[in-house]
């Protein structure tokens, strides 16, 4: 694994350098028009990184200087003393107050708040909205993307499974591409990390999480610009499952190792002072492991999107024969790297999950 970890460091270092570049440029520029453009690009990027209530295809500014958004509205589902379902087109990107029955809602900084008729939002000193935010279970852009990937995966792997029964165990078509990946996950991730006896139990999760993350990462690189795996709620959900599976399938040895790491190699009274330090570390480790999973995937994808969009934005800031092709070339190169990162992050998530499952499933002879 050190090789892969090295790569991660290398890539994150690369990402960090490029990340700082546009900021540096923006600090130097002073002209008003470019500043406007820059703040607009910055806004656009931060808008893109967040989840959205509608599936935006593109937007433009018309002759009057108004922003026109072309997007597919999605259903907003709120729990506010009863289920409130309405189309996201009513929110008008936060420009209007949506009236649903007798309630009024307004979109403010990507969040829906309950307001009065005028849509007044009150703020505290730290500029946080103090309005009541109802429980939001909307089918957002990210949810639609995940549903799309889920359907794609189901269709893809269902058809792969079918070709086995129809072709006497030989895959055809797209299955020829995916079968080696499935076998790779089984033979090079699950088997060596979990062990021959128990790996089958975890294969279902490992395969699903690998393809789910990979496909969502790849979808994020399309011009649709969805940033699902770069959203901490999504990576949290995935890492939570790894955490739950690890601890619910933990064997006696796993827990024994956790709470009695030294075993019978020392007298009990000698172990007490050590365990005051060791056990909290071990217990903390249970949570840190999946936490590192969720942060790693989130940060990598988020950073990739920021870098890529910043470089694309630079094309419009430079507007010169030298600068624009340069940033285009850079954006192109980063896109290629992002393709690799998309696969790499899916691999790392799966690999580390398998490693943690391996810890939980271990059963060694007592020595």
């Amino acid at each position, binding site marked *: 694994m050190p090789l892969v970890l090295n790569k991660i460091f290398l890539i994150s270092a690369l990402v960090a350098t490029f990340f700082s570049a546009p900021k540096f440029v923006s600090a130097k520029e002073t002209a008003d028009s470019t500043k406007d453009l820059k703040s607009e690009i910055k806004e656009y990027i931060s808008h893109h990184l967040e989840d959205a209530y509608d599936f935006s295809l593109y937007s433009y500014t018309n002759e009057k200087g108004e922003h026109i958004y072309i997007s597919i509205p999605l259903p907003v589902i709120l729990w506010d003393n009863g289920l409130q379902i309405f189309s996201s087109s009513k929110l008008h990107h936060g420009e209007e107050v949506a009236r649903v029955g007798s309630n009024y809602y307004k979109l403010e900084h990507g969040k829906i708040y309950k307001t009065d008729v005028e849509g007044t939002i009150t703020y505290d000193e730290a500029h946080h909205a103090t309005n009541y935010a109802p429980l939001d*279970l909307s089918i*957002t852009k990210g949810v639609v993307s995940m*549903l799309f990937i889920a359907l794609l995966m*189901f269709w893809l*792997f269902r058809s792969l499974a079918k070709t086995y029964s129809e072709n006497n165990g*030989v895959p055809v078509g797209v299955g020829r591409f995916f079968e080696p990946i499935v076998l790779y996950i089984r033979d090079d991730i699950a088997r060596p990390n979990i062990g021959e006896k128990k790996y089958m139990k975890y*294969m*279902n999760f490992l395969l699903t999480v690998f393809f789910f993350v990979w496909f969502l990462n790849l979808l994020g690189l399309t011009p649709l610009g969805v940033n699902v795996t770069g*959203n901490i709620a999504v990576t949290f959900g995935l890492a939570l*499952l790894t955490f739950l599976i690890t601890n619910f399938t933990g064997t006696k040895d796993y827990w024994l190792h956790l709470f009695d790491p030294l075993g019978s190699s020392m007298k009990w009274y000698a172990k007490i002072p050590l365990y005051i330090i060791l056990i909290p570390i071990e217990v903390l480790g249970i949570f840190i492991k999946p936490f590192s999973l969720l942060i790693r995937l989130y940060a990598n994808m988020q950073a990739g999107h920021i870098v890529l969009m910043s470089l694309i934005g630079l094309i419009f800031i430079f507007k010169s024969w030298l600068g624009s092709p340069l940033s285009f070339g850079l954006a192109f190169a980063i896109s290629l790297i992002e393709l690799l990162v998309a696969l790499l992050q899916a691999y790392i998530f799966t690999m580390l999950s398998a490693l943690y499952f391996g810890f939980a499933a271990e059963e060694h002879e007592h020595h």
Partner: protein
Amino acid sequence: MEKLISEFSIGLFFWQSMIFIGLLFLLRKYAWGPILSAVNERETSIKDALASAEAARSEMEVLQSDNQRILKEARAEKEAMLKEAQSTRAELIKTAKEEAQQEADKILTQAQEAIQNEKRAAISELKEQVGSIAMDIAEKVLQKELESKDKQVELIAQLLQDSDLK
């Protein structure tokens, strides 16, 4: 960090969990289960096929060595048979020659015997004839002696002339 927590979307988390867990169960039933079992089945069948091929190969080897052995034996037998045939032939020819020789000898001796017998018979007949001729001559001479001496001589001469030996 504070921004991350305040921006944490419970809705997205909820839907993500729903979709992912649903996907886990669906794929287990309809995709991963059949795929992994098919792949496993294929692998065991390949393993079996390889093992049986190996077994067939070793069996083949045994068969081949058997064949070699049988061939060798057959060749040896053929050679032995040929040798035997040759010796039988030689013997046959030899005995045939001997028999022929014997037969020929026999025929020769028989022929010699027959010739001897014929000769003997001829001699004895000659002897008889000569005897009878001599007797006749003697008789006639004796008769003529009584007439004259001249006549006797004449007679003998004539008789001798008449009796040419056949």
